[in-house]
């Protein structure tokens, strides 16, 4: 297991380097001059002298590869630069928005797991029955309904009409319910159907027939053998969802006035806050890669064959 983890971690290095290079270059492809953007944000007239002086100060006049290595060196020390708008460290601003995002993401993850796994399992066991039909409808609605509409419906009925939850903002646990449910809803359908499909496949495997022949109870077959094996694709699905959600859920955050990464990212784009955009893109990519790693590790935990292969 340890060997497997080390191997996977090593393979991350070129990926992360690639990400950093792309992030760095991408930003230099955006039209506009960071020095001019900075001056505008600071309400300083971007005269030629001012721009030239600032370019010197920000090191923008150096060759691109030197700029890259300097930037990379700083990034390694978690120094992502200073926001042009707030003049605070990018890393501090990101941390500030990261906590609400993590909160929202994990609350949504709980909803996804708690709703989609049982429903997926039940609809596989009772294939074709009304439960299955119902879950199919839920799945269709989940993947096709726009997030903003679902969010507003939830607010309108559960909050304005029934007065069960606050409309928006961050604060108590009750504030977390509607945004996380809205965020989770879009992922529920996919994960539910994934589990159902993979369970149906596994229910016809020889080991199930053999277990039945041995007289193992159906309950035990499903919970001990089939479910565990069928969870593999769902784990991938969840891992991807996790990466997506941690990157910030712009729409949900906007509707519920939730100060997360999505809002930070969008506002930094609108304000042409170059270091912040760079920081956010880098962060999101890293999160995605790390989530993938996490999925792989979970795989090996759920399926020993992968672990053994990796250990060879």
């Amino acid at each position, binding site marked *: 297991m340890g060997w497997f983890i080390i191997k996977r971690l090593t393979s991350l290095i070129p990926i992360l380097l690639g990400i950093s290079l792309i992030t760095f270059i991408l930003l230099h492809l955006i039209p506009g001059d960071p020095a001019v953007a900075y001056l505008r944000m600071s309400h300083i007239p971007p005269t030629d002298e001012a721009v030239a002086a600032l370019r010197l100060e920000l090191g923008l006049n150096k060759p691109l590869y030197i700029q890259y290595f300097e930037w990379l060196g700083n990034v390694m020390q978690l120094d992502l630069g200073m926001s042009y708008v707030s003049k605070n460290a990018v890393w501090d601003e990101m941390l500030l928005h990261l906590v609400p995002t993590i909160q929202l993401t994990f609350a949504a993850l709980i909803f996804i797991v708690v709703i989609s796994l049982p429903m997926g399992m039940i609809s596989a066991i009772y294939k074709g029955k009304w439960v299955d039909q119902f879950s199919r409808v839920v799945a269709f609605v989940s993947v096709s309904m726009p997030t903003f509409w679902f969010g507003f419906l939830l607010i309108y009925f559960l909050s304005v009409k029934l007065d069960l939850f606050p409309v928006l903002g961050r604060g108590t646990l009750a504030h977390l319910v509607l945004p996380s449910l809205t965020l989770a809803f879009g992922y529920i359908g996919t994960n539910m159907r994934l589990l159902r499909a993979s369970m149906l496949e596994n229910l016809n495997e020889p080991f199930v027939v053999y277990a039945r022949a041995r007289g193992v109870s159906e309950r035990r077959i499903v919970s001990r053998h089939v479910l565990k094996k069928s969870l593999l694709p769902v784990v991938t699905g969840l891992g991807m969802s996790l990466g997506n959600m941690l990157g910030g859920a712009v729409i949900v955050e906007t509707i519920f006035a939730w100060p997360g990464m999505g809002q930070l990212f969008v506002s930094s784009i609108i304000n042409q806050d170059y270091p912040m955009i760079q920081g956010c893109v880098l962060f999101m990519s890293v999160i995605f890669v790390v989530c993938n790693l996490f999925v792989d590790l979970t795989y090996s*935990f759920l399926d020993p064959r992968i672990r053994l292969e990796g250990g060879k």
Partner: protein
Amino acid sequence: MLFKRSKLLSLLFVLLLMFVTGCSNTPKGSENTSPKDNEKVVTFSMTGDIGDLNPHTYFPNEFFSQAMVYESLVNYGEGGEIQPWLAESWDVSKDGKEYVFHLREGVKFSDGSQFNAAIVKKNFDTILDNRKQHDWVELINQIKGTEVVDDYTFKLTLHNSYYPTLQELAYIRPLRFVGEAAFPASQDTFKDGLKSQIGTGPWVLSEYKKNEFAVFERNEQYWGTKPQVDKVIVKVITDGESRVLAFEKKELDFIFGNGVISQDSFQFLKDSGKYETKLSEPTATRTLLFNTNKEATKDHKVRLALNYAFNKKAVIDNIFYGMEQKADTLFPPVLDYTKINIDPYEYDTEKAEQLLDEAGWKKVEGKPFREKDGKELQLEFLFNSTDNIQKSIAEFVQGDFRKLGIDIKLTSQETTTFWTTAFQGKYDLLFTSTWAVPFDPHSYLASITTDSENGGPDYTALLGLPEKKEIDKKIKKVLLTTDEKERKKLYTDILTTLHDQAVYLPISFQSNIAVYHKNISGVDFLPQEAEVPLTTIDVN
């Protein structure tokens, strides 16, 4: 092994749950802290964060919050009347170049320190150290010196007699005062920000969470009429529809401002009959600006034609539900010096077509758009993509002008990019608006004459006008003239020329809206458009 694993999984799950709940229970948001008995709290929302609450800087600071905490020497009152504020009275020298302010005694900053001439000078000086950043305020350019005469007398010396001096002293920024303890070590409040937010105003910032909310408490030491409520909570809500829902749920006590909710939502709330709604007098003008440097729009006839071709009534009826008034002049005629006698360009497509023909843009058989020397009449219309109203109008214009054989190419950009492009003059038609009182008309017109960073794109747009130099000269003159009659004549001249040249296409006069629950009173519109009437608002 199996048992261990499932135990591990459930442990993980429990940890996750604890994390999520743990995060949520950290005390924050004043909605958690139970209000004291009889404590009156009002809650409203704004679209952005209040920033670092520094009266000497701009974005991301908001006007309304700067006005809550910091005060000016004089106040811009009803109808533009200048009232005593932190200065109880003032004397102006005969030549109009010296202003002596007699400061109000007994005014204290929220940290208990005295407000006096020394601190007034100190604030003026730090602002003047960064003159370049504030040069859109002509007064800043006119200030020659500041002087402490005695503890409560402050003298301002100007290069020239400048008539809007008092008016510009009333602006929400930058000429307002922070306490001694607020100054950073470098003493430069513009570059290094404030150490803390200490002002003389009726409110004190008591709790703040970036991008979430700000809580202001009543300043118990306030010298003037104290606010009716004890606390104001300002929530950051970017989405207009969410704002409406939060208001319906009573999480917000009132909605106030311009463009904070859609026209549809305002109409919906009004029609429901459950809430009080109000519409202010016209504040600023929504207008299109022609770029007189571009081939087609350089032509006076083309600009005239477009003015005749624009169906303002249809826009107002369909996009604004008839809530805004039609604009025929660059400024609402209710402002000082802006009432001029002109013939408005009424909607007349025949006249527009005739003018376009005269300008050489002729209809070509079998082609949708007019041509001149083989070139199609295509105009680039630049607007701000984050503004829903601009988008609707732009799309309407595109459809309507097509019928006349004019191809409108819509270009939408995010706010910052939009302004950059606008300042560079890369458009034919630009969606813009005037600045509302107290900036209109004089500060807005002054901005036409300079290429200032914090000014407007009008300077560049009007460069192609043969009369530009003449107009600039008159604007500069009108600001320095001491003769009321002369001033009136010059303003009429300037505004008439701008109208005759048809460089603007005024659409409508925009207003502030207010929607509030029936238990809220005192929601009145203030003379300065950006101010929120928080001192008069009361909860019953």
